């Protein structure tokens, strides 16, 4: 099983929803991650055949299916909002794609429905109507329906986004186990980096209708090739600070550290710092220190998000472990280890170097 998108473009109302998207996915799970409006849904709809591409081809198992009607394709789709047939019971909802599939043996339907229902924990709810279910149960019904028929391509469009936190965690674990040995291609769209990282599957980062990067998600997280990718994979959001190259060093808001590699003096850079890399206690002699003012402390229980105002004025968020009390207006100093800073080119957002430390190592 393999899915290939060949330079797919979608233009709607004069806007490029998808721009020359190329993608290759083998059997098993592939995560499509991107912020709101990145084109995730459009991409999935093109693969399903619900939205015809303006140009480009969709190839499933070596066969060009670009012009093939949705009804004739072997795909399943799970929407972000729970979509089931309201007039049918859960059982009939799950059975419905099987009943329409002529290749599926009629006497196998009942067994398959019960099998999938058991997998999704719906066995006791088979007789109910979707309106009598909770949100989580409705979405599990939708997923069960999508899983029931052995489709070439299974598409999930942020299926867990509308569920509450606990249920999301649990379903995510279930899905991961389910997709691991799936023979078909599974495309899972999400805006949540934790989901993409949690699945640990190959990922495609979308942004502004283009593929920003594709590859191993953990690698991408550790060494984001561009600012877009780093921002997409960071939750809480990446802190961005302005910098400039001067005398072989990068200066940023009064602090400076050795520049990674030789760069044209005066070149503008953007420093990306993940919130958990910001501390308020010095951790090493090379730390960059920024005088700051505490604006707000959000305590979630096991962790504290500290919003700091740097001169500039610049906003910086520190993600600190544990519950800690701070008073707004209190002065503080934010410390960042330059080895943990991503340096991006100001103009094209490319990663210049992962960190200053790397340069030091290479002499």
């Amino acid at each position, binding site marked *: 099983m393999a899915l290939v998108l060949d330079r797919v473009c979608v233009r709607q109302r004069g806007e490029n929803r998808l721009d020359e998207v190329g993608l290759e996915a083998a059997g098993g799970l592939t995560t499509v991650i991107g912020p709101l409006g990145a084109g995730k849904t459009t991409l999935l709809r093109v693969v*399903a055949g*619900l939205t015809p591409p303006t140009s480009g081809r969709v190839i499933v198992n070596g066969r060009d299916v670009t012009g093939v*009607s*949705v*009804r004739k*394709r072997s*795909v*399943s*789709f799970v*929407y972000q*909002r729970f*979509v089931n*047939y*309201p*007039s*049918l019971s859960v059982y009939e909802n799950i059975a*419905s*794609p099987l009943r*329409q*599939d002529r290749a599926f043996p009629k006497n196998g339907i009942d067994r398959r429905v019960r099998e999938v229902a058991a997998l999704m924990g719906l066995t006791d709810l088979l007789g109910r109507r979707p309106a009598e279910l909770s949100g989580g149960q409705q979405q599990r019904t939708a997923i069960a*329906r999508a899983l029931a*028929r052995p489709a070439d391509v299974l598409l999930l469009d942020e299926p867990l986004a509308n569920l509450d936190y606990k249920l999301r965690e649990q379903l995510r674990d279930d899905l991961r186990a389910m997709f691991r040995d799936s023979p078909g291609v599974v495309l899972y769209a999400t805006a949540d980096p934790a989901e993409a990282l949690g699945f640990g599957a190959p990922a495609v980062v979308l942004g502004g209708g283009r593929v920003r990067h594709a590859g191993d998600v953990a690698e991408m997280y550790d060494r984001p090739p561009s600012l877009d990718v780093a921002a997409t994979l960071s939750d809480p959001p990446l802190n961005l600070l302005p910098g400039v190259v001067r005398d072989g060093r990068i200066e940023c808001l009064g602090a400076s550290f050795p520049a990674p590699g030789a760069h044209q003096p005066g070149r503008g850079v953007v420093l990306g710092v993940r919130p958990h890399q910001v501390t308020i206690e010095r951790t090493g002699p090379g730390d960059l220190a920024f005088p700051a003012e505490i604006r707000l402390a959000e305590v979630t229980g096991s962790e504290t998000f500290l919003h700091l105002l740097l001169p500039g004025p610049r906003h910086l968020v520190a993600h600190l472990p544990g519950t800690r009390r701070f008073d707004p207006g209190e002065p503080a100093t934010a410390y960042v280890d330059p080895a943990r800073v991503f340096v991006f080119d100001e103009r094209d957002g490319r990663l210049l170097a992962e960190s200053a430390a790397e340069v030091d190592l290479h002499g």
Partner: protein
Amino acid sequence: MKRRPRAGGPARAVRHERAAAGRVRLPWARTVFWLYAATLMLPLLWMFGMSIRPNEDILGGFSLIPERVTFENYRTFFEDQAWYSSYLNSIAYTTLNTVLSLVVALPAAYAFSRFRFAGDKHLFFWLLTNRMAPPAVFLLPFFQIYQAVGLFDTHLGVAIAHMLFNVPLAVWILEGFMSGIPREIDETAAIDGYSLPRFFIRIFLPLIRSALGVTAFFCFMFSWVELLIARTITSVNAKPIAATMTRTVSAAGVDWGLLATAGVLTMIPGAVVIWFVRNYIAKGFALGRV
């Protein structure tokens, strides 16, 4: 009045409580209601009273309770072919009209609700403007065309003529309901492999059941009460009951009893239809945009 919790589980009970809490108590509400209902019902009761007494009593006295009860008028109605056949004519073309209007309006409403095409909004508005023209405008064209194509004095002819104002109405009501059904349902069905007609019948129609009921009711009602067109394009074979009712004036005067009988009977089909769609009427007036 003491309110007892109804059956139907805690969810319904809660909704019930909430509705009860939001209700304002008006001390005179009951009295005003019955006064209003009595005012509405009086002419109907009077008509029923007239239909079960002889003509002399109708003209002779003035009382709500008849002195002599007779079903002679009803016997006349159902024995005289001119009467009962026109009654059946009305039922026939009205039913035919309701069915045809729905069959035509369903695909149209679906298209308006689901597809964007050049001039769709204008077309939708144009459809509604058909209801704005007085029916009399269409009398002559209908009369001449029907004479030419042989639809004159047929049930089908009247049904088609009434579709002129019933189809726009049906499309309008159905479109509102259909637009309330998420498009993802259509897409999911397509992905599941349903063909469009199959999806329409198996999945979609059950979802807009209430809309079907309401639309059928409106089509039936408008066709049933319409007299001008129905009378002009019929002569004998499809003559509506309302036209026959004008026959009661003769040299011997007006046959009040028979006229009242016809009046009572013309109300029955409407009442039957209302009984079936009574639960959907409120939703119908909201036109699906609840």
